[in-house]
């Protein structure tokens, strides 16, 4: 058992961060350069952290498996980034962004972290604009905003449909400056395959050079993981193909607790699956729901008709009908479940019946095609490339797909895991989005963690460490971890089974989607656990990896990642099984509102909406590895204590 101490500072919520910064230990400028920090990842979180830590004077070593930091998966984010600037004068404030985010997460996030995030949001926009991020502007030259789900104000900043790309290029440019100065050493095509823990503290990593296959040991005073989310456990998702859980998983196996692994986000607007060969699903940004209206036919028999032939009266704009206050901008978990419900009723459209329409005809009438093109042109073009359909003329077909993971390594208020010296940032940690993330909040969190939070919190830990006592790479813990990696590689290459790693990944993805997807129940999760553990056993008997260790070998890379995904899948099912409530993206069929519940009668929720059980489950589940994949992991709990907000019924009606 591990005690998960959140280390939330005392004092009123709105003053915690300020007083924390004042009270935290600092390191004097001359001493900073003696400390060496490893940062793994250069997405928004890792690149911003690396650049900022180097600016402060620390010696930073940055590792990415990509060929360049600029290619991190953050580059794909489309829609935008939230900030409580209130430039639109529409009533926004730090308090409102905080509350929307806490409520959006179905009251399963940590209050103090979320408040800090909302406070810092305003600095992020300033920082990015100063770096030259070409945010969208109004004719007067000031910054433009759009709306995103789960909010009734316009607080989302954007750069066409390529916000993630532009923010990442900004962070990458800050990183480049420090690399150019020699303050950051950048290791590309370098995959972290183990965490080195010395006397209970994270003191280094083991890395495989993907070009040469060389395995190297790296020591540091602290290790920062900013390695992204694990949605590819479902195989099909909106993530880049290379996104994986390996860094987090290997840290988990070294003692870091995994927080709320079952909290995954299924995004409502993605292009539906078209065939068995499919390798990824493409997101159609949530920003489209600003102007697009979601509907399905009211009658099953209309589903195969040309949408143009279905009269207005026979269309069910179900989000507007069910959630009138937010309509098409209902939060993602709610919009996804509603799409599933109408499809389960047999009212889905398209060849597979797993799809709904996202219709722009009203917007085109209202604004003209040019304005719509200006706002979403690249998304419409992307849709056209993939489907060969013209969304200016006929509605888009969309369906929910795996998109984001709210779960991740457990961290305290300092963003430090329960392994001292191991910090976790961005999507890789669990901390700020509870059971559902609102749109445009991941970019905000990644940059908040990297530019502003970690650089302020890491000194508290470093001040307790003596850089001249830093364990060197001859320490037995480094040797042991290196051997661990070598053994795994040998095992994979020596196995000589009959199946490719990709075929296992596909099978795992299907199991996860069927038993731990948009709707979960006890029997299904139990079955999922059994089937996944069997898949794990088969993997080690039957996987076949070609090629050699000492060369560029994509199958070998993938084989290690798939092995970790299989183990993670089992943990996710266990977490989903133990959480006998529904909250946010975690929908347990046994726990939903019925027509007879008082909240339904009061008109707060619809029958079928998720039903939380605050009496029993208002906690973060931090799972601890028990030493072997087939041993049941240990459940540690961090109670969620709300000092200011009342955990109320989450209503969007």
């Amino acid at each position, binding site marked *: 058992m591990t005690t998960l101490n959140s280390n939330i500072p005392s004092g009123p919520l709105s003053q915690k961060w300020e007083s924390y910064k004042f009270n935290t230990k600092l390191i004097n400028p001359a001493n900073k350069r003696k400390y060496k920090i490893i940062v793994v990842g250069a997405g928004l979180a890792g690149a911003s952290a690396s650049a900022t830590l180097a600016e402060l004077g620390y010696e930073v070593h940055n590792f990415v498996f990509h060929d360049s930091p600029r290619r991190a998966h953050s580059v*794909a984010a489309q829609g935008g980034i939230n900030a409580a600037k209130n430039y639109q004068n529409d009533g926004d404030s730090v308090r409102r962004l905080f509350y929307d985010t806490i409520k959006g997460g179905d009251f399963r996030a940590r209050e103090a972290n979320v408040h800090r995030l909302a406070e810092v949001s305003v600095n992020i926009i300033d920082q990015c604009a100063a770096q030259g991020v070409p945010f969208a502007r109004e004719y007067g030259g000031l910054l433009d905003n759009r709306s995103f789900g789960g909010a009734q104000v316009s607080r989302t900043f954007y750069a066409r449909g390529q916000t993630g790309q532009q923010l990442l290029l900004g962070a990458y440019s800050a990183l480049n400056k420090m690399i150019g100065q020699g303050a950051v050493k950048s290791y590309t095509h370098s995959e972290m395959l183990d965490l080195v823990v010395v006397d209970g503290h994270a003191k280094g990593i083991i890395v495989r050079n993907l070009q040469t296959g060389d395995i190297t040991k790296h020591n540091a005073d602290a290790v920062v993981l900013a390695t992204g989310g694990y949605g590819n456990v479902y195989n099909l998702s909106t993530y880049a193909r290379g996104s994986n859980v390996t860094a987090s998983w290997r840290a988990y196996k070294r003692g870091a607790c995994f927080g709320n692994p079952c909290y995954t986000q299924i995004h409502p607007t993605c292009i539906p699956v078209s065939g068995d060969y499919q390798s990824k699903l493409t997101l159609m940004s949530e920003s489209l729901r600003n102007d697009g209206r979601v509907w399905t036919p009211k009658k099953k028999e209309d589903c195969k008709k040309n949408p143009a032939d279905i009269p207005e009266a026979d269309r069910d704009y179900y989000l507007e009908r069910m959630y009138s206050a937010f309509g098409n901008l209902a939060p993602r978990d709610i919009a996804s479940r509603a799409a599933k419900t109408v499809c389960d009723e047999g009212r889905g459209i398209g060849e597979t019946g797993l799809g709904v329409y996202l219709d722009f005809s009203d917007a085109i009438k209202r604004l003209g095609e040019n304005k719509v093109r200006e706002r979403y042109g690249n998304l419409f073009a992307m849709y056209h490339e993939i489907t060969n359909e013209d969304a200016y003329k006929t509605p888009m077909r969309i369906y929910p797909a795996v998109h984001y993971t709210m779960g991740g390594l457990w961290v305290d208020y300092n963003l430090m895991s329960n392994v001292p010296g191991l910090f976790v940032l961005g999507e890789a940690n669990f901390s700020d989005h509870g059971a559902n993330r609102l749109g445009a909040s991941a970019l905000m969190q990644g940059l908040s963690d990297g530019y502003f939070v970690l650089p302020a919190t890491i000194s508290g830990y470093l001040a307790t460490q003596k850089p001249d006592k830093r364990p060197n790479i001859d320490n037995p813990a480094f040797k042991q971890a290196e051997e661990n990696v070598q053994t795994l590689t040998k095992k994979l290459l020596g196995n000589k089974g009959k199946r490719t790693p990709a075929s296992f990944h596909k099978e795992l993805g299907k199991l996860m989607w069927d038993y731990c997807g948009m709707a979960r129940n006890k029997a299904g999760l139990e079955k999922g656990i059994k089937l996944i553990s069997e898949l794990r056993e088969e993997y080690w008997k039957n996987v076949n990896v070609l090629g050699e260790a000492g060369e560029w070998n994509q199958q070998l890379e993938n084989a290690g990642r798939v092995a970790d995904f299989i183990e993670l899948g089992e943990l996710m099912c266990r977490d989903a099984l133990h959480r006998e409530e529904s909250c946010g993206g975690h929908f347990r069929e046994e726990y939903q509102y019925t027509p007879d519940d008082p909240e339904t009668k009061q008109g707060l929720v619809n029958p079928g909406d998720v039903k939380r059980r605050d009496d029993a489950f208002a906690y973060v589940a931090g799972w601890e590895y028990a030493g072997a994949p087939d041993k049941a992991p240990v459940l540690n709990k961090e109670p969620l204590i709300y000092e200011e907000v009342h955990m109320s019924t989450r209503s969007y009606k």
Partner: protein
Amino acid sequence: MKITLKVWRQKNANSPGWFKTYQSPALNENMSFLEMLDVVNEELANRGEEPIAFDHDCREGICGTCSCVINGKPHGPHKGIATCQTYMRSFRDGDTIVVEPFRAKAFPIIKDLVVDRKAFDRIQHAGGFISVRTGSAPDANAIPVPKENADLAMDAAQCIGCGACVAACKNASAMLFVAAKVSHLGLLPQGQPERYKRVKAMVTQMDEEGFGACTVTGSCEAVCPKEISLDFIARMNRDYGVSLLKGEPKKIAGGGAA
């Protein structure tokens, strides 16, 4: 549909390479080009043959990882589209498709279709930034930017760093890429203080990396998946000229490629 693939196979930078021919299994025209390679690779692997190495990640045209010259054209047949956004419906049943890596001295081959494009990063290290320390920025609306400038900067900033422009150019010049970077920052008020230093430092590094000279044939613009305009090259040339007149140093103080 079925196709014949002629693919470049090369174990590493130091080994010779050659074309190898494969018959595809049955394909669906709604597959992406990379999904076709996935399917071919699974078949190869199941036969015990090493899969074809190719670069990819986002598979939606934004990360710049995918590469490949398809039938002689970097990123394949369509204008303004990356390899990963190319679909099999662009080809016909029975076609022979020739797939090669991007070829340029500054992009050494790693394996098969994968090349090393880190030279691009080193150009960026030399000057591809605005120097602003975290926490030192003024309020974002304190610096208004005319919408036209912001939009034009965004046109340049869209470059995904794929390197197709280099692969298409007979001189393997990196001018379109560098021009996109230089113009993005140079068009914004925030980028003015370092404008001429930046262009000098980046062009110097570009030359050191072994990219060729630009003779403005426009083959780069024609294959660029983001349709970055040649106009940016003219803009960069003007800025570079000014930097020479101003006698800017070859490296930014404290900067310079590592």
